């Protein structure tokens, strides 16, 4: 066997589908001297790839997952290892039928076709061994297939080796890694040491252990998913291929069944969450099967036998068909169900490509390679980005608690606004007790408990005549109180807890340079100015959007939403100069923020401070310190709800006092406590304010989002070249705001789309732009002050016509007519921005 090289351009650890794909795609994109390692043997090193069920269901509610899956399917086909057999998700309950209609909608939004809803009789024709009498219907995706992931990985690996760009070392265990000055330097293995400045961890369930060697975190946990094989199945003896019938997902009972040669494989996600620690995974010799095939626990599978029997009695009730094989297979689960990809925030040059299903493997490999080589992947990976995790989310306890809760949702029906119940009440704002007294209904974001709305405001519902939502699904995780709070704010004023902001101070002689480089907007503004700006990626799409206050010549304060705060932090940290002439401090927990907006905001504020808060004295887009009682408060006059008012920053330990002061001062002015329902949705939709991860993604340009400024600054910034190009081109799509004209469904019940639904012509034809992207709802919610229900969507230019009434939104398999109310970013409410500038 050849010896391990002393040095490599990149070391990829892990020879499953992901590691093979990363290694291949790195070489495909021009890198050579790539080394691929695994502690196990080839072709099957003993990880999850080796025992995976290997089927690819294309549709997911997540756009990111679906795009990764579609790209992976394309690669599997190109490698000649894709067997198309079709897949049917069947429904035993009406609730599941509704979910299938939503999956149809997601399929249309993300561009998966063909897809169709099928009747029990049609299911029976496709899967003759099913008992269709227990079903209400199904969702059929003919493009679903089965792949040979081991072979795919082998082929990719061999291609790279043949090209002379990759060397592979099996039976080579990683024993340690050296980090110097925050950068990965070398990998110690059982066959020697390799110097490398780029290392990729693609170790599946073992990834946390490998990352820990370098002091980094990959927060996943190994979990069990059970599967058995029964056979020989008489009907399958006539098959000439390994799979000739569609795969069936019996999601109401959390199971799937598929032909595997002459056997039927039955898998289950129905059992209790069985989590293991990565340290528990046995070595190859200790394991009786492979390290990721744990002994089967029969008791956990017993209920599933009955469910499988009910659905496929022809096969499962046949006494001649025996249970031949049964395992508890290990897979990697994450706290939010998304993969973990990208450069670790802890160690430069150390990348993660972990917690990936076979169905995304090849595309993940390609995307991570693109990210490494070009600085960005062509598929937006913000939901999978490893830098998304807050500190507490990397702890073992949190990972276990959330994955324990998440596992039963694998085939479950998950509402888009659904809240977690485990590991709550970790980050409590200083105003929490006051909020509890006001009957706050708390939702969690980034670990923070934030009031979504306040029950004390219930009487406002009647006062403002807010209608309830009739359909249970639409009304779930929502309250009409939100709309009432919104109207109260617009009429008088609202008080908001914004503690969850992530706040970073960038300071030093080169602080301005760093910010200029990072963001689109001109940052050399006078001290005391507040700038709202997009942050672009190298290809000119959106990486983030945030606000920055210039506190001093060399001091800037970045404020961004908690949800994406950690990823934003890495963007700026990565741009800091090595010589320390600019530093970044995370001061999130040093400050708390209270928002005060509405027509009476100035009345309230001026009653508690002697400082000048007049329109001329304290113009919009400025920030300064005010004295409010004994408190020095940094006031920033901007508004994400689009009304007169301020964000008010105080040291966190003083938050309760400021709240009390404002609350008391606000009573004569009918100040209302308002939750994030208003702040995150109703307020901004009326003003056409875009949100990252909703409208703003790397796939869309600044021009398409209607956010280009009159001029581009002369200083260089990330994505400038691409952005300049985009300004010269015709946009392939234009972000518009639509109103729903009629919510009435065929049953008479009014329905309210929640987001991600496809926008179609009135006759149901889908809209696709010149870049092949579908039009779909990026954000949905009420515009109470407008008396409308608002949707945002990117439309192809020919349909982006204000006032046009040729479009519809497809929700629950029905079309509801919409009007294009606004093309571009001009607000629908207060289009002159008079309130905000008053």
């Amino acid at each position: 066997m050849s010896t391990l090289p002393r040095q490599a351009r990149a070391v990829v650890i892990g020879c499953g589908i992901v590691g093979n794909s990363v290694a291949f795609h790195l070489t495909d994109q021009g890198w050579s001297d790539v080394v691929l390692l695994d502690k196990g043997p080839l072709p099957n090193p003993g990880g999850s790839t080796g025992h995976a069920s290997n089927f690819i269901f294309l549709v997911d509610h997540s756009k990111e997952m679906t795009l990764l899956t579609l790209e992976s399917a394309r690669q599997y086909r190109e490698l000649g290892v894709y067997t198309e057999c079709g897949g049917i998700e069947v429904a035993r309950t009406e609730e599941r039928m509704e979910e299938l209609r939503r999956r149809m909608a997601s399929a249309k939004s993300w561009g998966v076709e063909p897809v169709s809803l099928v009747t029990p009789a049609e299911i029976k024709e496709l899967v003759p061994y099913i008992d269709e009498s227990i079903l209400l219907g199904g969702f059929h995706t003919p493009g679903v297939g089965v792949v040979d992931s081991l072979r795919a990985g082998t082929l990719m690996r061999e291609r790279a080796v043949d090209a002379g760009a990759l060397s592979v070392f099996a039976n080579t265990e990683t024993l340690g890694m050296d980090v110097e000055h925050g950068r990965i330097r070398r990998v110690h293995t059982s066959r020697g040491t390799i110097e490398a400045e780029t290392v990729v961890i693609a170790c599946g369930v073992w990834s946390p252990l490998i990352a820990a060697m370098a002091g980094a975190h990959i927060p996943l946990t190994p979990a069990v998913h059970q599967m058995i094989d029964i056979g020989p199945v008489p009907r399958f003896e006539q098959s000439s291929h390994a799979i000739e019938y569609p795969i069936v997902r019996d999601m109401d009972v959390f199971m799937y069944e598929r032909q595997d040669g002459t056997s039927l494989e039955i898998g289950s996600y129905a059992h209790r969450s069985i989590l293991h620690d990565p340290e528990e995974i046995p070595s190859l010799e200790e394991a009786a099967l492979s390290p990721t095939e744990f002994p089967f626990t029969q008791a956990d599978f017993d209920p599933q036998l009955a469910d499988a029997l009910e659905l496929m009695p022809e096969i499962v009730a046949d006494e001649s068909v025996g249970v031949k094989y049964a395992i508890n297979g290990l897979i990697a689960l994450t706290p939010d169900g998304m993969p973990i990809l990208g450069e670790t925030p802890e160690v430069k040059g150390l990348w993660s490509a972990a917690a990936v299903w076979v169905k995304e493997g090849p595309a993940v490999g390609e995307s991570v390679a693109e990210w490494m080589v070009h600085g960005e992947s062509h598929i937006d990976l913000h939901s999978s980005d490893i830098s998304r995790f807050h500190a507490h989310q990397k702890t073992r306890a949190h990972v276990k608690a959330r994955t324990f809760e998440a596992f039963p949702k694998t085939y479950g029906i998950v509402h888009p606004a659904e809240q977690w119940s485990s590991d709550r009440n970790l980050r409590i704002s200083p105003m929490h007790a006051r909020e509890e007294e006001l009957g706050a209904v708390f939702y969690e974001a980034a670990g923070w408990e934030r009031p979504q709305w306040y029950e004390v405001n219930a009487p406002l519902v009647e006062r403002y005549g807010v209608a309830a939502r009739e359909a249970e699904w639409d009304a779930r995780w929502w309250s009409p109180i939100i709309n009432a709070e919104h109207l109260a704010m617009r009429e008088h004023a609202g008080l908001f807890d914004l503690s969850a902001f992530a706040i970073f101070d960038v300071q030093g002689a080169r602080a301005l340079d760093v910010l200029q480089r990072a963001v689109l907007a001109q940052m050399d503004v006078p001290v005391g100015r507040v700038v709202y700006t997009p942050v672009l990626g190298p290809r000119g799409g959106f990486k983030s959007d945030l606000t920055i206050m210039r506190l001093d010549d060399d001091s800037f304060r970045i404020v961004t939403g908690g949800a994406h705060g950690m990823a934003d932090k890495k963007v700026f940290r990565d741009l800091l100069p090595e010589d320390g002439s600019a530093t970044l401090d995370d001061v999130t927990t040093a400050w708390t923020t209270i928002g005060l907006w509405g027509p009476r905001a100035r009345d309230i504020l001026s009653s508690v401070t002697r400082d000048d808060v007049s329109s001329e004295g304290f113009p919009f887009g400025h920030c300064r310190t005010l004295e409010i009682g004994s408190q020095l408060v940094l006031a920033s006059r901007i508004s994400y709800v689009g009304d007169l008012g301020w964000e008010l920053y105080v040291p966190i330990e003083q938050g309760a006092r400021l709240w009390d002061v404002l609350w008391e001062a606000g009573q004569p002015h009918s100040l209302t406590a308002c939750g994030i329902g208003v702040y995150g949705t109703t307020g901004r939709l009326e003003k056409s304010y875009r949100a990252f991860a909703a409208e703003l993604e790397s796939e869309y340009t600044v021009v398409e989002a209607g956010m280009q400024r009159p001029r581009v600054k002369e200083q260089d910034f990330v994505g400038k070249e691409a952005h300049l190009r985009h300004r010269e081109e015709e946009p392939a799509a234009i972000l518009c705001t639509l109103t729903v004209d009629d919510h009435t469904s065929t049953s008479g019940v009014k329905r309210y789309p929640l987001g991600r639904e496809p926008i179609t012509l009135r006759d149901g034809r889908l809209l696709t732009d010149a870049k092949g992207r579908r039009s779909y709802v990026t954000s949905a919610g009420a515009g109470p002050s407008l008396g409308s229900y608002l949707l945002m969507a990117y439309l192809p230019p020919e349909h982006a016509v204000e006032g046009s009434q040729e479009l519809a939104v497809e929700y629950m398999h029905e079309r509801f007519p919409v009007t294009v109310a606004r093309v571009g970013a001009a607000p629908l409410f207060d289009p002159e921005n008079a309130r905000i500038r008053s």
Partner: protein
Amino acid sequence: MVVVYVEEAGELTQQALAFARFLAEPLHGFAAGEALEVGGVETLHVAEGEAFASYAPAAIAAALAELAERLSPSAVIAAGTQRGNEVLAHLSARLDLPFAANCVAATPGDLFAVTRVRWGGSLLEDARLDGGLKLLTVQPHSVAPEEASATTAPVERFTPELDDADLLVRVVERVPAAAGGVSLAEAKVVVSAGRGVGSPEGFAIVEELAGLLGGAVGCSRAVTMAGWRPHTDQVGQTGTKIAPDVYIACGISGATQHMAGCKGAKTIIAVNTDPEAPILASADYAVIGDLHEVVPAISAELRKAKGA
């Protein structure tokens, strides 16, 4: 003084004698029916009678019990064969004494402590027996046999008293094995494979190689459990224990239960895609590769050598 049950003269008896001699002298032998040519014991006590015309374990145990009553040995030893274990198990039941089967060592002078095998030899157990008379069998091929003595021991016959119950279990017939083919247990060369061959037909290349070497075909437990080959081909703890000169194991990972069946092989050659497969820790030689390619290549090379 130790009594040794002699099933038949041969290497296993010489091993048992060596083990027994290590414990205590003098040694007395016991045989059922036939006066075997055995040396190294003071006397060979032979139980006589119709009952011993064929193998009858309960009767043999009854005779042994009577002898032990008379001689008062400190221990009764036998080779750990199927029948050695069976007879001593009967004896232990009769006398209500503990019995340690398949020992590899015992502490001389203190017959309370023994080391015996578990898992067919993959694990050892240190144990203690209580009771005055120690009943032990010796794990085959774990103790060096003592040299056969030139002189045959003097024979003393006796007719033990037997119950009807002692006579119920005895061999009434011998069905000879089908002629032809090399017996797995006796073969000097064994070529075996696991489920990696892919199908029952996949064994054709294994049979070919075994044929060229004049050897027998073996297989792993997974193969027999799948119904691909008869259980008589199974090498392993619960199959046949083999001791060939050469054992070629193809696509066999080396699970402990399999190794328990082939550790008697003098030379092991492993063919495996995985250089870290457990079997390589017990193999003398290895080829790293796919058996589907390697095995036919070896056969082709052999034919070339024969033809040349």
